[in-house]
């Protein structure tokens, strides 16, 4: 009998007893017995990890019962509030982005809920606001979010600022800046800017994402109008229905940004009574019936190691404003590196040709350069020079005609090398494993980068096969630490 597969060994460990023949083989085979021992140690570890939960069962149960003893008995929840919760919770990252900024989405979601759910006495005012919002053709707003981790060794403050412009039917320009400061801040500290990006989309054009911090940009697919409509504040309003969100307090009127505004504190009925969603401050322009500002705070100070508080404020909301079309032109900034990854078969073929020639000249391996987030060692010019040297060395035993042919082949793969170089410059979103992978590794990835559409990745294997992989399959092939630290593509892929 041949040795057992990994799956057979796992089956023997997880569900012993059914496979007599396999068990007999284990008894007779040292190699399989050793493998089985390793798998058994792994499953023992899994059992140990999970048994920890059992130890805390009684304490956790007591905590739960103590919590429910402090809250009211179960009460009927209105269908509208349930509907609200479902609508907000099912927003995808892409939809959030399309709505005009990830952080902002939550704020607009709250706004939607507020609009959605009016108490009887406020119904007419809310209806007026909804009507106005339905007819919006453009808007802009600013968003400020301050998130502080206030305990532990890693105390810090993160401040995010967005400025967003939108124009019907599907144009968007959004800037996002994030600054990080230690807490308490040292005297005079201005913080470390960790993010400074700009996204521009307009109907009929590929979009662009500009990373000012790294002085790079890349082109993105066009923002699909249907998707945009589905998640924009305007579209949300079309899905309005009656609700029952509670107005906690009337804040009266005051001047805000030069306008008379009426304020409300609104509770969305979040299950956690401490949630900031139960105390949202909304200010509405009394003349236009459109929101001017809304803010809420959230915090969790129950954990001695990981307490945090967050304040988010959307302000300076302006509606139906004149916006220059040029604001939404996805222009490539001068002096920035273009790191747009290849998106057509011809480009991929050129890259494969370059890698294949390198492997032929080097005896089966690929450029042995490191590539990790933040820095890549793949530079097409240098690699081509190396290929010329390899070609000259290989030609020593050939005739002059053959040597000239090799030289010419190296010249011809420059375009492919340049495409690889350009893609790998975006080192946070790409992978290259020339140090480890050779032409014999037909199941290992030599290189990957995000596919133009969908959630997957374009990959090139060690044997130079190229294909588009779904995200789940890509996860299986990259090292676990790469998958775990996968750089989010929300900023780069609106189609995700």
């Amino acid at each position: 009998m041949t040795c057992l597969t990994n799956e057979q060994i796992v089956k023997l460990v997880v569900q012993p007893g059914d496979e007599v023949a396999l068990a007999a083989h284990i008894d007779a085979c040292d190699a399989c017995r050793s493998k089985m021992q390793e798998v058994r140690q792994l499953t023992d570890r899994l059992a140990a990890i999970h048994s920890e939960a059992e130890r805390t069962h009684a304490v956790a149960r007591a905590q739960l019962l103590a919590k429910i003893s402090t809250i009211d008995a179960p009460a009927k929840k209105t269908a509208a509030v349930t509907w609200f919760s479902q609508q907000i919770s099912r927003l995808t990252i892409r939809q959030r982005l399309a709505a005009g900024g990830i952080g902002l989405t939550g704020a607009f979601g709250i706004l939607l809920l507020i609009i959605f759910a009016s108490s009887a006495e406020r119904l007419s005012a809310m209806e007026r606001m909804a009507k106005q919002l339905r007819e919006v053709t453009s808007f802009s707003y600013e968003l400020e979010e301050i998130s502080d981790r206030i305990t532990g060794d890693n105390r810090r403050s993160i401040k995010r600022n967005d400025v967003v412009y939108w124009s019907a039917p599907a144009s968007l320009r959004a800037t996002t800046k994030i600054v990080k400061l230690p807490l308490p801040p040292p005297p005079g500290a201005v913080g470390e800017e960790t993010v400074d990006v700009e996204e521009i989309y307009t109907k009929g054009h590929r979009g662009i994402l500009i990373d000012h911090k790294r002085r790079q940009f890349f082109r993105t697919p066009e923002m699909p109008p249907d998707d945009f409509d589905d998640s924009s504040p305007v579209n949300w309003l079309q899905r309005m229905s009656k609700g029952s969100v509670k107005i906690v307090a009337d804040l009266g009127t005051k001047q805000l940004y030069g306008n008379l505004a009426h304020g409300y504190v609104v509770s969305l009925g979040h299950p956690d009574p401490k949630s900031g969603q139960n105390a949202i401050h909304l200010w509405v322009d009394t003349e236009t019936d459109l929101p001017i500002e809304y803010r809420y705070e959230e915090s969790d100070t129950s954990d001695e190691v990981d307490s945090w508080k967050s304040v988010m404020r959307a302000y300076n909301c302006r509606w139906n404003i004149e916006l220059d079309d040029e604001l939404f032109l996805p222009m490539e900034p001068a002096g920035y590196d273009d790191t747009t990854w290849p998106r057509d078969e011809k480009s991929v073929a050129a890259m494969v040709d370059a890698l294949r020639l390198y492997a032929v000249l080097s005896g089966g391996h690929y450029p042995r350069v490191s590539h990790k987030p933040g820095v890549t060692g793949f530079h097409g010019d240098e690699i081509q020079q190396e290929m010329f040297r390899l070609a000259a060395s290989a030609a020593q035993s050939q005739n002059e005609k053959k040597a000239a042919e090799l030289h010419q082949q190296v010249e011809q793969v420059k375009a492919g090398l340049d495409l690889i170089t350009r893609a790998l410059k975006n080192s946070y979103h790409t992978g290259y494993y020339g140090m480890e992978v050779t032409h014999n590794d037909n199941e290992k990835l030599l290189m990957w980068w995000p596919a133009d559409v969908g959630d997957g990745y374009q990959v090139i294997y060690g044997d130079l096969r190229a294909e588009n992989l779904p995200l789940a399959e890509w996860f299986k092939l990259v090292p676990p630490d790469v998958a775990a630290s996968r750089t989010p593509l929300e900023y780069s892929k609106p189609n995700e």
Partner: protein
Amino acid sequence: MESNQPTNADLVTATLAGNREAFGQLYDRYVRIVRAVVAGVSGDWPGADDMVQETFLRGYRNLTTLRGADRFGAWVVGIARQVGRERRRTLRRDRHEFRDPQPWLIESPADGEMSVDDRDQLELVLRSMSQLEERERIAIHAFYLEQQDGRRAADLLGLSRSGFYALVQRAVARLAASVLPRERKERTVEQ
């Protein structure tokens, strides 16, 4: 012979009548599968305690919306999926540096100190698990939380027993393929 155990419907009715201990019994029955689902969906094992509490609190508050009190198990598992999805979104936000990512935490067992090697090994297993498919993670969590009672875990997840075992075996095989080569490599380096 009839079981003396109260049915789910009995316990739900008692809870709605104000008997909180009845809800505690529902917790006893379903806490393991809820933990499996929130951890599996979110990929966040260290955060499972909080998610379990949140799931049951939501369940308690919304108990009157449950149609068919005998369906409590499937219903609370649905809430657990929702809580897990919300946590997953929060984790994605963390990677934008709005909040720092939560480290993998392995607590020392009460009966003795855990060695650094043991701790590293358990962390490697958990990290590798996070790379499995969602349903594979749920299957592993359910299998081991239910103390390797595949039949009960399958019932709670609404799967056939054979289908559940096939899923667990595939998940463990993939986990082994990820974890064991690294451990062998580390052993080689140490030697």
